[in-house]
């Protein structure tokens, strides 16, 4: 019943419009601003990362420090699918649906395995347990020499077999980015639907007080696992598109890089955990500040003789801290507190 409840559908569509509008502007900028397409692709990647992460962390309040493992297994699943299809001589287009399905499936399997154990833990204990998942999986891939071990998988050759030389150039550049825009739109709709349905209410109740949620009829385990698997599946597809299709290279060092998880946390908290727009706004600010400090501010300091590696990060950190202090509930949270105008509030989802 909840799936086809027309009110929920209308609410979900209304809630998704502002976020879809931001992605439309990003898409236009990607095509229209010369020489900056990769800056917008980077913003897109982080916005998607934040959005996918937000469905679990933002809505339930559980922090998964092993989140990037979903992106990694998704990328590997996509890579293995590409190798299999290439050796079978399948037409290239089959890779996109089959590869994405494999990526989502692999991530969901990992989510159900990790979830079955770690989701019995609460708060900080859950966070600590998940740190081990990512690092453990990485060393397992490397140590057991699975899928190329520590060297990784290079699937450019297979992608070229599937798409041809020219076709591959198109797939790895514009098509990969466009597919990520598509995934971003899909993620917006999924988030908006969750927020407008029973599941969103259940997740928020869990985040706000899990004991009360349980006493008031919410099957907390079911909803936590559902959110974890949804969040993981979206992350898996993101990893597949960003690393397997776009880069064609899957190195454990890169795909299991824990910094992506930390960045996802920053983006979600910066923008507003549990909100639809939060991670997108968070990514815009985070990448925007990163870009400005890297491209403008750090060279300026170097010009007057202050040189250090990672200088731009030293500039970035205090700004991020200031943001968090000024807006502990994120930018969207702050705006929702400050703005009373009901018309504007309707857009702050």
């Amino acid at each position, binding site marked *: *019943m*909840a799936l086809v*409840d027309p*009110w*929920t559908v209308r*609410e979900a569509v209304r809630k998704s419009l502002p976020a879809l509008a931001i992605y439309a502007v990003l898409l236009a900028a990607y095509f229209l601003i010369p020489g900056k397409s990769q800056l917008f692709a980077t913003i897109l990647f982080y916005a998607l990362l934040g959005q996918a992460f937000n469905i679990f962390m933002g809505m339930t309040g559980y922090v998964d420090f092993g989140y990037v493992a979903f992106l990694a297994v998704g990328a590997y699943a996509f890579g293995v699918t590409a190798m299999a299809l290439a050796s079978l001589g399948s037409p290239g287009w089959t890779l996109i649906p089959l590869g994405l399905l494999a990526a989502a499936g692999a991530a969901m399997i990992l989510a159900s395995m990790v979830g079955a154990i770690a989701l019995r833990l609460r708060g900080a204990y859950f966070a600590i347990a998940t740190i081990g998942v990512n690092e453990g999986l990485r060393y397992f891939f490397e140590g057991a020499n699975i899928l190329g071990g520590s060297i990784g998988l290079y699937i450019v050759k297979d992608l070229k077999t599937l798409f041809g030389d020219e076709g591959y150039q198109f797939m790895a550049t514009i098509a990969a980015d466009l597919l990520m825009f598509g995934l971003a739109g899909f993620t917006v709709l999924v988030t908006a639907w969750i927020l*407008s*349905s*029973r599941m969103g*209410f*259940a997740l*928020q*109740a869990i985040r*706000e*007080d899990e*004991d*009360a*949620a*349980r*006493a*008031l*009829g*919410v*099957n*907390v385990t079911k909803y936590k696992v559902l959110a974890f698997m949804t969040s993981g599946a979206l992350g898996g597809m993101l990893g597949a598109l960003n690393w397997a299709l776009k880069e064609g290279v899957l190195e454990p060092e890169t795909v299991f890089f824990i910094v992506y998880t930390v960045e996802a946390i920053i983006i979600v908290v910066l923008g507003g955990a549990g909100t639809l727009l939060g991670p997108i706004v968070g990514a815009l600010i985070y990448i925007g500040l990163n870009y400005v400090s890297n491209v403008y501010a750090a060279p300026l300091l170097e010009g007057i003789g202050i040189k250090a590696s990672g200088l731009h990060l030293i500039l970035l950190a205090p700004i991020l801290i200031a943001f968090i202090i000024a807006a502990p509930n994120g930018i969207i949270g702050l705006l929702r507190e400050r703005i009373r105008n009901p018309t504007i509030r309707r857009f702050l989802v």
Partner: protein
Amino acid sequence: MSSGREVLRVENVTKRFGGIVALDKVNLSIREGEMMSIIGPNGSGKTTLFNVINGVLKPDEGRVVFEGRDVTELPPYKRAAMGIARTFQIPKPWPNLSVRENVAIGALFGRLQGKITVKEAIAMADEIIEMVGLSEKAEAEAGKLTVPEKKLLELARAIAMKPKVLLLDEVVAGMSPRDADKVMETVVRVKREYGIAVVSLVEHVMRVVARYAERVVVMHQGRVLVEGPPGEVLRHPKVVEVYLGGEAI
């Protein structure tokens, strides 16, 4: 006194925490539409009994029967969906959600779970919020309410679950007599309208017990000490002894 059929039965329930016997072979029966108060000094086992009825704690011995079905092994969320609702002694609203959202969640996951859309749940929430007198705060964040308002919110949230048994844990503690009467009159109205059995735990507010309860159960050291109509029970020498100490009688 209500003569409705039995909705909830607690049979020979014993609960120990290490060496301490918190509940010692407790037996209780609650009827449809009945207003029962469980009283007893701090540490007498009242809240433990609630936690056993609601499923937060599993008894070491004995069983809990709800509408003829043994629910002793069921988790709290399943019991809630079957019709056992509760409030907490220290209110546990979902603080960053609005009053309306808090109550709507009660409606969505209570006895109507799966049978009600989000829109209907929100409409129902607004009705109940009005009934308990919180309409002006419908949009407010639950965490920003005063304590009496939070208690009203918890009551509204539990009512929205359309329960058959409503467990109220110290719902009027710390309230002014006027606020307490307001809350209790709402409870009475709900009880009459929906035929809900109400069990309220009360430590000290005997005025409320005397005025609203139809049956009083006195607990002491994990046991049911006396049971009966409030007029009799509150004057019972054993009860006076428990509350005022042995020397007083």
